[in-house]
């Protein structure tokens, strides 16, 4: 009988983090990159809650709530940025947006 412990949560969150990171790195579409960021934030949320629960430390949930709110704000701003990028470059392909180099 396997009891679900802290390690399992951390593994889940690690997988989620890795998936998010993979998405950020590999996706060409800026929207998809943003979704990768959301995945990473949620991986962090799982960590907060898991540590909170197993250490009897309820503030973890509180931080998770903050992160959710922050994620919402971030999504709003980021989507606005993407919209502006599209207006300027007529594309949302991050490979083509490399003016930072200049």
């Amino acid at each position, binding site marked *: 009988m396997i009891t679900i412990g802290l390690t399992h949560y951390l593994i889940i969150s690690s997988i989620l983090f890795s998936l998010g990171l993979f998405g950020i790195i*590999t996706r060409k579409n800026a929207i998809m990159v943003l979704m990768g960021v959301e995945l990473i934030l949620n991986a962090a949320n799982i960590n907060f809650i898991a540590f909170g629960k197993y250490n009897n430390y309820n503030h973890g949930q509180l931080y998770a709530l903050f992160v959710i709110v922050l994620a919402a704000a971030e999504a709003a701003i980021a989507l606005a940025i993407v919209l502006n990028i599209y207006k300027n470059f007529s594309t949302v392909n991050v490979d083509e947006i490399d003016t930072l180099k200049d």
Partner: protein
Amino acid sequence: MTDIQLVQLAIAILFLPLLGFTAVIFAGMKIKKAYLIEVSIIILAFLASVFLMVQKLVYFPDVNIVKEFTWVNLGNTPLLGPIQWDLGIIVDNLSVIMIFVVTLISMLVHLFSIVYMHGDKRYNRYFAYLGIFTFSMTGIVFTHNMLMMYIFWELVGLSSYLLIGFWFEKKSASDASKKAFIVNRIGDIGMFSGILILFATYKTFTFETIFNEIAKGHLPFGSELWLTITGLLIFAGAIGKSAQFPLHVWLPDAMEGPTPVSALIHAATMVAAGVYLVVRIFALLSADALMIIATIGAISAFIPATIALTQNDIKKVLAYSTVSQLGYMIMALGVGAFHFAFFHLITHAFFKACLFLGSGSVIHAMHHEQDIRNMGGLKKKLPVTYATFLMSTLAISGVPLTSGFLSKDGILAGTWAFAGLTGNYLFAAVGFLVAAMTAFYMFRLVILAFHGEPRNKEKYDHAHESPWLMAMPLVLLAGLSVFFWYTPNPIDGGKGWFVSKWINEPTLVAPNKYEFFKEKEVSQISEANVVEHSAKSNANHEVMFSETYTEAMHHAHYPAMILSLIVAGIGIFFSFFIYQWKKADPEKIANKIKPLYNLSYNKWYFDEIYDATFVKGTLLLSSALAWIDAKIIDGIVDGSADVTRAISRFSGKFDSVVVDGLVNFMAYLSGFIGLIFRRFQTGKVQTYVVLVVFSLVIILFLLK
């Protein structure tokens, strides 16, 4: 008038000519008549000095009025002790008489010059120069300290230089002015050193203070020898200015200047400044110093007298005669005949100024002919000039009833008395010999110029008597060559008011004086502060002029007088014998004593000797120094320049190869590294994220 008012008057006389100089030198370019300012100012100064002299001699005959103020006070300096320089004016009998002479002759020369210099293109400047000269001479007369004496001494030298070289377009005139200046400078170096020794010893320049200190036994470097040396060093200044042997060579050349200038500066006043200086410092001269001074005076009296016998230029004869007479005065001071030296200074100033102005009148009349061989017979054409010239010639030859007789007689008596007391007959012999020669060459001049038949008919016909403005000074000066201005007794000057009342006897403070000065010791020196204004400084001293010497002079008087009459008579007789009655041919005599004649005619070859030794020596030394400069000093400089250049070239190479290479290498390296790292800067966010994650993983791995 109070004594303070007299001092104020003296200061006014001092600065009036300076005012004239300033006015004329600035206004002279614009205003043609500017010289009238100077002339009227000098007349004013003359009237003031007459008034000053009368006041002083009548109301303060025995008082030396001194007024001084502190010019520079450095306080107690760390190395040299207290330093304070006082300037001041002394109004004593000597200075008021001297100032009378200076302003009188200066005024007469101004008046004479109005005609003589008429039409000169630098007319106003000439009068300005006369003004600055009169100012400087007045300063010498009134000063009560060595510092002012030296300052005015140099100013006099400067104005003499300016006036000798007044016609500087003439090469000979500009050369003569340079010669006068340089020769004077040699003497002045000595005088300056003497002043420095005095100041180093006594911390003051004031005559009175120095004399008082010496009287107390405070000597330079504590030795009598140094006092003698100091006295002689200061006397060196007088050698230069009074044209004494061996620095007499400048005076005959100075005749290149305008003739009235010769009368004022090179006969009556400036050259007398040297004698005046010796009179002022007479107190501190020791017996050894006086002996050397007398010797120099005797040499200077003798050599120029022999030169004057054969010269043909009227002004040259007078110039050598001036040197000779100045030597007479210096010799008189050396043997202790103080009164008569000063007396002769005054009488000589009058008759020699008259002679020079007379020669100026002749030169003017003859249209700048100075050679007496081209003159002759001018008696009829220039009666006034002839009469005054003859009067002055009688005076300088020592004919009775003239002033020159009195003063010369006194000097001869002084040398005679000196001979009697010390057994040294040299000075007396020189004195009488020179007296005979003086009478001879002066009458030779008169006879050749004025008597006989005209030798240059053309010039003679054009000759004309000078206007009254030129004749008046001659008459006045000739009038002053008569005895009764100085004494009521025409055969004994010592009894007259001039010598016995007006010339105060000097205090003799030097510890080492002639034996016959010594018998009356200084009993005490009053501690009274002579610096206090209008102090009766005379009253503070015991007069040390000995009875013995005065007595001896008194006894020597009649024999000396008779002998001097005889020698003057012989001189005059030979002059008439040769030149007037033509009983002997001067050329034959000259041929008989050819070497002596040549020696005299060529001025004892002084110029040639000086040229061969000092001038050539200086040139040789200069060229040697120039060689050292060009070869050695320049060589060192060039060598160091070469070394510097080599070092520069090397360091330039080092700079361009090593330093620049290093810098370029660094730049190249940076470029190379940049080339590598630019690959990472894709500008794509995702690349950066990969890099961040990758780095993070490495860091985490390392931290583990």
